[in-house]
């Protein structure tokens, strides 16, 4: 059992909340590949600039993206290292597969043994 601090739990809450929205996941996907201005991001969605700005702010609070100012533009980029190192991604994938293996195990355990397969 991993012991997590209150701070870790708050951070996890913020991350899961940030990722629980389709538009925010899409924004994150875009800014992880390259830096985008908020206005360029906003052009991708059928919603107001202010609404997109709010989504970006939620992602920023969760530590998933960071912003910097360049003249009149605000540029956003994903915090690839902080959140999504290849190692952590593989761990996530591992969780998916562990889930599948556990469900197969359960499926196999919940049936009478077929004698012709023994």
């Amino acid at each position, binding site marked *: *059992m991993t012991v997590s601090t209150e701070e870790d739990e708050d951070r*996890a809450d913020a991350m*899961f909340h940030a*990722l*629980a929205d*389709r538009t925010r*996941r899409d924004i994150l*996907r875009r800014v*992880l*590949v390259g830096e985008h201005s908020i206005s360029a991001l906003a052009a991708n969605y059928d919603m107001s600039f202010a609404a997109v700005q709010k989504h970006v702010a939620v992602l920023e609070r969760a530590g998933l993206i960071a912003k910097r100012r360049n003249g009149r533009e605000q540029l956003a980029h994903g915090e*690839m290292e902080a959140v*999504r190192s*290849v*190692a952590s*991604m*593989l*761990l*996530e*994938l*591992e*969780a*998916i*597969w*562990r*889930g*599948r*293996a*556990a*469900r*197969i*195990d359960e*499926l*196999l*355990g919940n049936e009478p043994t*077929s004698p012709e*397969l*023994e």
Partner: protein
Amino acid sequence: MPVTDITHDLDSRTLVLTAHFAAPVERVWQIYADARQLEKVWGPPSHPATFVVHELVPGGRAQYFMTSPEGEKYYGWWEIIEVDRPRSFTFDDGFAADDSFTPLADLPVSRNVYAFEAADGGTRATYTAVYASAEALQQVLDMGMIEGATTAMAQIDALLAA
């Protein structure tokens, strides 16, 4: 827990997972060959999978979607490359935008080999997936984030119930 070993190779972005199941190889194979059984295990309980097409033959295709609690659907496809029944099959796994299951060209595809052999009175399953780039892995995990969260929740539930 059925999982016996896991290897990550960061350089080649490869994940290899080994699991042991208390059933004959032929029985484990049936889960992958039968869409109705496969959909019981493919998606997490919160996001059940529905296989619309499933042809486990060389050149065959699978088309499936997973449904979120909010009713949002995530579409995916397999292209079956090789089948050596009941020992192994190789397939590419990718995403689609909608129920036309047209592959999304800008989303990554992984190459997977699932292999099964008799071991210790049951079956040893070896699952291998290879991703072309870190970005590809990132995109694939957009779907996986859901399960990551689900797993975390389940662990929290278990902790609370203890």
